[in-house]
């Protein structure tokens, strides 16, 4: 190997060679500076194109929100005229007044908040207990049981809806020939089936597992029971995850449409999504939909979620993003 190497390399220390050697680095007749500046230009152009692309798409993404806002402030005639306007010529705040008078926003809001609070509390409790048992306690069949739980995530919820409807009916929570649903029963039917979320158990278990064993050992030395260790150490340490779970649960209730629609008898027992879909805002004389009112109601439904997002952006994006972490 060394023989071939000596044959090919240039000994720069050799004076005889150096005399005749001219080292020139050229690339397609451009100097290094020219290449550098060309690269810089192409980089700038590429960055500009990237920004243009992203900003164009971002505008498309937020455009429906913009359209919702300006439509809610337009008159009916302006909404349906041939030449669409991108800003209301007459700002109609009265659309909102009408909506507050005719759309039972506060009734739906109250129902949604009650259902959200109670289903969140229930979910948090069951999730904390189960995650604690799965992450800290020893018992036979722990891994097997956890696998069964994880497997249930594969089942589409629609499989359950039919039987859950029958189950809830058998609890007497749904209007039947002999029974009329009360508002408490309507709430119960909307809350209790959602007291368990396998995904959240999985999420919290991962979080609990990260808490170092030393804390548990220290608590044991101090004579703490499992119960007080769970509430005084683990729950406070996992607070960010618990906040994420609560917010996602609240958003879920705010968006839930199918189940409340199935299990409630009267419109005033239903949740905000149902209320929005069912309020037709039809013009009594013409039978046409009053889009201005409809959009104003849509805004009322969207704004609370937006406020939630503004205040808890970190928790929401973390909680949602956690779903994609492999393993």
């Amino acid at each position, binding site marked *: 190997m060394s023989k071939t190497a000596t044959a090919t390399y240039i000994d720069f220390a050799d004076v005889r060679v150096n005399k005749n050697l001219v080292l020139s680095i050229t690339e397609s007749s451009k100097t290094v500076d020219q290449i550098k500046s060309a690269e810089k230009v192409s980089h700038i152009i590429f960055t500009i194109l*990237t*920004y243009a692309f*992203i*900003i164009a798409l971002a505008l498309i*993404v*937020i455009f*429906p*929100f913009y*359209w*919702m806002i300006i439509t809610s402030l337009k008159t009916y005639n302006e*909404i*349906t005229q*041939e030449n*669409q306007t991108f800003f209301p010529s007459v700002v109609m705040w009265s659309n909102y007044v009408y909506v507050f008078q005719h759309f039972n926003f506060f009734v739906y809001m109250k129902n949604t908040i009650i259902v959200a609070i109670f289903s969140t509390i229930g979910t948090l409790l069951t999730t904390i*207990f*189960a995650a604690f*048992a799965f992450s*800290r*306690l*020893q*018992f036979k069949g722990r891994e097997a049981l956890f696998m069964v*739980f994880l497997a249930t995530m*594969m*089942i*589409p*919820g*629609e*499989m*359950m*809806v*039919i*039987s*859950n409807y*029958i189950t809830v009916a058998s609890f007497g929570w749904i209007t*039947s*020939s002999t029974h009329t649903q009360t508002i408490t029963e309507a709430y119960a039917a909307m809350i*209790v089936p959602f*007291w*368990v979320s396998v995904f959240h*158990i999985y999420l919290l278990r991962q979080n609990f597992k990260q808490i170092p064993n030393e804390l*548990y050992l220290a608590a044991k030395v101090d004579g703490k029971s499992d119960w007080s260790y769970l509430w005084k150490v683990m729950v406070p340490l996992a607070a960010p995850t618990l906040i994420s779970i609560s917010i996602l649960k609240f958003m879920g209730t705010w*968006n839930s*449409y199918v189940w409340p629609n*199935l299990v409630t008898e009267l419109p005033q027992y239903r949740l905000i*999504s149902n209320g*929005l*879909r*069912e309020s037709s805002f039809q013009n009594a004389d013409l039978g046409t939909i009053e889009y201005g009112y409809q*959009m104003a*109601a*849509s805004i009322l439904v*969207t704004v609370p*979620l937006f406020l939630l*997002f503004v205040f808890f952006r970190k928790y*929401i994006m973390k909680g*949602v*993003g956690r779903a*994609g*972490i*492999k393993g």
Partner: protein
Amino acid sequence: MGIELLSFLKGKKKKQASNKGSGLMTLEPEKVPVYTPGLQADGTVVRLVSNRKIKKPYRVSGIDDVASKNNWKAWLYLAPVIILVTIFLLYPLINTIFISFTKNYNYTTGKYDGFTLENFGIILHMIPYKSSAGEAWETSFTSNAIPNTFIITFVTVPVSIFLALIISVALNSIKAFQRFLQTVFFLPYVTNSIAIGMVFSVLFDDAGLINYIFGLQHAGPNGGPMQWIYNTPTAIAMIPLCLFIVWNSIPFKILILLSGLQGIDKQYYQAAQIDAAPKWKVFGRITVPLLSPQILYLMITSFIGAFKEYNSIVSIFGKKGETMAGQKNMYTIVFYVYDNISANTSFAAAAAVFLFIIILVFTFIQFWASSKRVHY
């Protein structure tokens, strides 16, 4: 280990063994003969050595010894979840499969007329539905629900994943305003889908913005405006629907892909830069393969999600799920299930089982197809 042996010699072993869950290792007392260390009367020297069997490792550190081994306590913590999972997840699964094989299941009384396979045949348009009123064919499942579901799935899933991939790569390559733009792209996630679906139906209205911008105000039937939502065939109504679904599903995908992108080692890109690899090659040879776990995850979850599309249809086309009165032409499989829950519970159950099987098959196909292409 010396400590344990010493404590044993001092006679404390018994106390520790009885102290359940205290966590210190246990030695079987009868196997350790009692010697006082040092020179014995018979001239032998006794040293403190362990006669522990090697097969049984010490387990003095770690949670296993300290964690409560009280089984009943663990089950107490799990009781609420197990009860709820059994009532609202496992029992319904079995019960739905059961109902799908019963004839004329009545959901209020729980009565049925024996077992049959007919439900699947009826909803799949293979045999007529016999009732007291005579024979009838159940058509909305095969002619509307199944094709619509498949169109929605195979249009929206690839389009939204592809778009999300491009957007997240672009987002990842910029520095200024990255967080802000990321938040903007996340906005559709935090909305009420019913409310935004209504906005889409306003945008695609006869006198809506889409017709105005694209000059379609006289492109519809009889020289009227283009009809996207009312009195229009399914193929046209699919356009606003698919656009809405893509719009609605992109934020989640961007979030997942972006967090995946940020986890990719920069050295791959530096190596590509040294080799002067063109950008599209870097995208195809480095970015996509390294993102393959996230892409697989998104493929599986969004396939499942698209198969279950329901809310988006209700929000754009209303509760009846049709563009033409009485046609049920925007039905999806899930729409069919919900529509038949109380009237034809057996059919609804059969359709739900059908959906379950489709989802299982597709998930397994994706796992199988990806087993060689996903790099963990």
